[in-house]
């Protein structure tokens, strides 16, 4: 998907007014569809569902009270903090393992099978195990987040490190660059687009990992906030949490697309 967006973005500045025109022509059908979806939701819920079920008007009314609710803000902070912490660990660890895999065929052959297997594992499966090892604590949540996210980064960085153009490495060797410097000054920047693609995947998975961990372990956070409120029939309030999660999911997507475009403009060329 990133590819589609990247390659369809015009590179030159003069294309700007054109883009504005196109935006106007797409805005109307999008708004209409949105209204139809929300309207249908509202009507169906009003006609058929019990009173407590979330509906668009109810959610809109709930938004101000939810986002000023200190409980909600604490929950948000806890989840975001855990995801950020987990992702930070994941990026460092995942990149190191990925680089090693990409540049050392022996290491790659040794552990690729296992990384693949872990990557194919539905990540939430480890929750019962982590709850045994770490207890019903925030440690178990961090562990789940890391486990959920790390393999996506590792696999992508490994692919990226393998795809570094040979000429770069040859030039580095001709200038007698040290191995470590080659790794961090050439291989790492060259595999940056792959790292970002991996980050996009990993961020989504980390978010899911955090929410599921909170469901399972009953520890404070956005996931638990949603669970608690939907159990006490405050569906509108709970749904504000879901909206926020969706916003994070989309936000990560947009962030990665934007930074690929902004910091790696050369990447577009090799894309197709």
């Amino acid at each position, binding site marked *: 998907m990133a590819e589609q967006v990247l390659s369809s973005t015009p590179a030159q500045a003069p294309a700007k007014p054109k883009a504005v025109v196109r935006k106007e022509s*797409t805005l109307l059908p999008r708004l209409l569809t949105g209204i139809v979806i929300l309207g249908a939701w509202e009507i169906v819920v009003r006609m058929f569902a019990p009173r407590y079920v979330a509906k668009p008007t109810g959610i809109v009314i709930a938004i101000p009270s939810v986002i000023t609710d200190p409980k909600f803000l604490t929950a948000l902070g806890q989840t975001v903090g855990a995801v950020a912490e987990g992702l930070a660990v994941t990026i460092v660890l995942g990149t190191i393992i990925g680089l090693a895999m990409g540049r050392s065929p022996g290491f790659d052959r040794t552990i690729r099978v296992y990384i693949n297997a872990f990557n194919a594992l539905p990540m939430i499966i*480890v*929750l*019962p*195990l982590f709850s045994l090892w770490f207890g019903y604590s925030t440690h178990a949540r961090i562990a789940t987040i890391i486990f959920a996210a790390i393999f996506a980064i590792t696999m992508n960085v490994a692919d990226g490190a393998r795809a570094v153009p040979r000429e770069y490495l040859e030039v580095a060797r001709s200038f007698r660059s040290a191995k470590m410097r080659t790794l961090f000054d050439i291989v790492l920047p060259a595999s940056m687009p792959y790292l970002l693609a991996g980050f996009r995947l990993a961020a989504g998975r980390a978010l899911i990992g955090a929410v599921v961990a909170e469901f399972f372990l009953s520890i404070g956070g956005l996931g638990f906030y949603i*669970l608690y409120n939907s159990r006490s029939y405050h569906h509108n309030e*709970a*749904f504000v949490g879901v909206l926020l999660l969706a916003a994070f*999911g*989309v936000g990560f997507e947009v962030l990665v697309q934007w930074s690929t475009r902004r910091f790696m403009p050369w990447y577009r060329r090799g894309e197709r």
Partner: protein
Amino acid sequence: MVPFSVTLKRLWQLAVGGQFLTELLDSAKLFTTGFVLALIVGAPLGLLFARVRALRIGVEPYIMILYATPMVALIPFILSLMGFGFGPKVLVVFLFTVFPVLYNTVEGARSIKPELIEVAKSYRSSEWALWREVMLPYTLPYMMTGVRQAIGRALVGMIAAEFFLSSSGLGKLIMEASQDFDTAGVFASIFVIGVIGVGLTRVGLMIEQHFARWRQ
């Protein structure tokens, strides 16, 4: 932690006792029902969105948003609305699965060259023939990318449904083992699900590569 040998022994016990088979079939039923439903809904809908341009432009952002939304967050709502039956669990697997299929199908169908459709139209192709001869073959490789992504997600959905809705299948096996502090049992179940996960991912990759040859 438990030694690997204990895990293997436990695995053997569970396999011989027949418990694995029952739970496995139970999980398989859930997985297949949700997955097939998602395909039946997602693929034709994706083609329809691609064919009707105004519709596609209208729904695209919403599909993207739903594709990026962590669907697990909806489980509590499904639980309190639909309870503990088989239906809500299928719905969870369906929700996890349908958006990758839909997203990739739309993505593929919108890349159909307009000339192809124009040529078909100038030869007075009927709408049905246009779908069958142009749109479907052109979109199939993309759809299969969606299917590959969906396999992984459906597995997560299956386990999540089995954890958080009525406990059943392989999810139940793990939960029970963990509640009994039977680490070997947990490992044995994870091992089995891991093997299934790797196997299904392989199948997904094979399907995707088979159809990728059609891609231009």
